[in-house]
């Protein structure tokens, strides 16, 4: 009997198990609490993952107890957190305390307990994402636009009492970009983003985190379009800049074109040739030496251009070469019809001057390559005898017979157009000069010599002090004696010897108007009686004074006697190279500047014996 009961029981059990197995039912699998979170340090929620349910409806229960307590509690809220969750309300939540939590899964077949988890609310804090994210594009005037992002903290978080501290972070990117640009915003609830790409659509997100805890998830993205206005502004600006610069360039080009010639001449002044002031070839041709010489000495033309045209630089002439009368083109009067050659009087020097590229080289019939210079000894006129002075002009004379410059050597000769209506065609005068050259050569056959830094010899007082003598003889004597002092066998074209130059004119006084650096004296043409006077009448104030040279000192210093009667005092100048007589520089300079109106080139200082300082003239040359 007992055996039957036992076997029956076993059979039933086996049947039962078979039935169960066939049905697939089993006790529930072990659940697992996988996450607990507190959004505000005042509540927290735990979630579990149920295990296999065993084919049967399974109940889950959560049990917990706190550190230091023995009493076990059940989950107070299975609903708020969703399925398979347990929510702990404020009264159930304690900070700085370990919770020991377990979940029990129960079904008909049995129950299964999960592993214990140890949870301290302190370390499971994760807030919700920020709310009400608002993004605006702000565009202040004259500044670049920026994004202004605003948000508010998530609900249920107590920031006011300081129980909870939130820190924020922003990320944004242009719509099609791959990488986000993040900015940490600290505890503030707004933020400005300054580096923007205009014309793009931006996505903006914000998240937050407690002072010690986990970052929240990102807020939903906020799209905003950045306007592209400033690119247009840039374009307009660049267009206007381009137009303005084009206009400026055009103006510059136009100005350069107009003034190009004069600018070029400023930068590269032409080489002047020596000129003889007032040398009228026509007169020479006619044989009116007196007039010619007076013309040489007394021209008083206003300079048409550079004042330096009045002067002729120092000229050197070799023995080896035949003397030729050289006339040099300086600045030529356009009306003369000559080919204008721009000669810079400053660079007029020596033989080169005679080689000026003017028509001289073509026209001069003299065999010499370089026409010689008509040189005359310097003469210093006396103020007392204005009537009889020949001015010896050692300088070269221009074709047009421009007023001669009295130079002691190396001084520049500026030439003026001849004022006389009787002025011949330059070509004819050129021929005249050629004749003059012949004349110059013929009588002596010796090379003419220019005054060598003429002051050396020219200013012998013995000669100079004789301007009072009238008549040719006197002149010739002067010239001869003067001539005898020269180093070389100079052959002077004496007025007496050459018919053109022969003249019974009384000695004239010439006003010194400029001294060059080498001590050459440049004389102003004499004004007054001479028929060859420059057309421009002289002002009475401009009447020059003449100084009588009392003697010449060793260093070729002229010692003048001041003439106190005349209004202006003309200075006679020594011609030595670096002789240091004192002269009034300013007047000399002034004289250069405004030639026709120069009352006094140099004013003699007080005293009986005056010394002229070539330095002052030197300055004027420079």
């Amino acid at each position, binding site marked *: 009997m007992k055996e039957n009961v036992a076997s029956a029981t076993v059979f039933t059990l086996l049947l039962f198990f078979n039935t169960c197995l066939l049905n697939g039912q089993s006790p529930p699998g072990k659940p697992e609490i996988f996450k607990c979170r507190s959004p505000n340090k005042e509540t927290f929620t735990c979630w579990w993952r149920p295990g296999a349910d065993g084919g049967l409806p399974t109940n889950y229960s959560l049990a917990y107890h706190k550190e*230091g307590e023995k009493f076990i509690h059940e989950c107070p809220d299975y609903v708020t957190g969703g399925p398979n969750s347990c929510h702990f309300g404020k009264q159930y939540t304690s*900070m700085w305390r370990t919770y*020991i939590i377990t979940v029990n899964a129960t079904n008909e077949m049995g129950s299964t307990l999960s592993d*214990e988890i140890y949870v301290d609310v302190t370390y499971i804090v994760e807030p919700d994402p920020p709310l009400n994210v608002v993004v605006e594009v702000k565009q202040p005037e004259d500044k670049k636009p920026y994004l202004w992002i605003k948000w508010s903290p998530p609900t249920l978080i107590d920031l006011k009492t300081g129980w909870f501290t939130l820190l924020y972070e922003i990320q944004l990117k242009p719509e099609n970009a791959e990488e986000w640009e993040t900015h940490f915003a600290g505890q503030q609830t707004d933020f400005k983003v300054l580096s923007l790409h205009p014309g793009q659509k931006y996505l903006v997100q914000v998240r937050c985190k407690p002072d010690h805890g986990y970052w929240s998830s990102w807020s939903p993205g906020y799209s905003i379009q950045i306007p592209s206005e400033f690119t247009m502004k840039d374009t307009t600006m660049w267009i206007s800049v381009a137009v303005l610069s084009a206009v400026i360039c055009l103006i510059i080009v136009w100005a350069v074109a107009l003034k190009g010639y004069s600018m070029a001449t400023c930068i590269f002044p032409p080489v002047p040739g020596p000129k003889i002031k007032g040398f009228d070839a026509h007169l020479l041709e006619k044989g009116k030496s007196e007039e010619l010489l007076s013309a040489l000495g007394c021209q008083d033309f206003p300079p048409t251009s550079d004042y330096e045209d009045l002067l002729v630089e120092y000229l050197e002439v070799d023995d080896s070469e035949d003397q030729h009368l050289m006339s040099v083109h300086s600045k030529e009067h356009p009306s003369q019809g000559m080919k204008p050659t721009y000669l810079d009087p400053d660079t007029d020097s020596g033989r080169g001057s005679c080689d000026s590229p003017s028509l001289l080289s073509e026209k001069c019939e003299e065999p010499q390559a370089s026409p010689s210079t008509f040189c005359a000894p310097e003469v210093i006129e006396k103020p007392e005898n204005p009537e009889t002075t020949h001015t010896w002009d050692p300088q070269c004379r221009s074709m047009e017979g421009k007023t001669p410059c009295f130079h002691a050597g190396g001084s520049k000769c500026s030439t003026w157009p001849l004022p006389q209506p009787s002025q011949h065609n330059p070509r004819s005068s050129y021929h005249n000069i050629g004749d003059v050259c012949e004349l110059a050569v013929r009588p002596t056959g010796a090379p003419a010599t220019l005054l060598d830094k003429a002051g050396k010899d020219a200013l012998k007082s013995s000669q100079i002090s004789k301007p009072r003598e009238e008549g040719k003889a006197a002149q010739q004597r002067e010239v001869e004696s003067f001539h005898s002092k020269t180093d070389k066998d100079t052959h002077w074209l004496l007025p007496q010897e050459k018919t053109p130059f022969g003249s019974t004119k009384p000695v004239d006084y010439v006003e010194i108007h400029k001294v060059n650096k080498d001590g050459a004296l440049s004389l102003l043409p004499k004004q007054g009686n001479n028929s060859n006077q420059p057309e421009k009448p002289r002002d009475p104030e401009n009447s020059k004074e003449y100084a009588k040279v009392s003697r010449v000192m060793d260093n070729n210093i002229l010692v003048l006697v001041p003439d106190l009667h005349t209004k202006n005092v003309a200075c006679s100048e020594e011609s030595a190279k670096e002789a240091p007589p004192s002269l009034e520089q300013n007047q000399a300079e002034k004289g250069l500047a405004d030639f026709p109106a120069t009352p006094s080139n140099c004013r003699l200082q007080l005293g009986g014996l005056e010394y002229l300082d070539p330095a002052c003239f030197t300055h004027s040359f420079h």
Partner: protein
Amino acid sequence: MNIEASPWKGSLLLLLVSNLLLWQSVTPLPVCPGGAVRCQVTLRDLFDRAVVLSHYIHNLSSEMFSEFDKRYTQGRGFISKALNSCHTSSLATPEDKEQAQQISQKDFLSLIVSILRSWNEPLYHLVTEVRGMQEAPEAILSKAIEIEEQSKRLLEGMELILSQVHPETRENAVYSVWSGLPSLQMADEESRLFAYYNLLHCLRRDSHKIDNYLKLLKCRIVHDNNC
């Protein structure tokens, strides 16, 4: 010789005594003693400074614990044993916002000071013991040293704040005594490791408490609950 020495002796003694007396009377002057009008360090500045320190100390403690656990005690289940084992649990500290808001300002400040004082000795021994360990973990040691240093500063600051807010408070002598040193020196590695684990676990918790309390107090005292 004796006749000459005695006056010197006397003067020397006098000098010594006067120095002793002077030393005793010297106390560090608090910044802005209560009631000082011209004081430049405001309460706000003190609280700002204190919050910075407490925040920093907790960060260090948290890192130190994580590093220690990861390296030495991962998987040993020490957490289950380190329950109710902190020496400062005897101090009645609030455990939620409501409790915290019910404590008076003065008590709250005194409490914070007590907690800080309670940690002076454990921190000192922690540094000493970690330093003496074989293959001392440098990261943990440096953090321990830093925490000890900053805790001292925080304590000074809190005492200052207390003297400003409640000048009438006498020096608070209440603090928890720590007796865990023998555990740190145990021969058994597991026991010793658990002792360190427990110490670091409690340190992390208490530093978080102090930080949270100070932020609460700052908003309450400086900003009138309107942070």
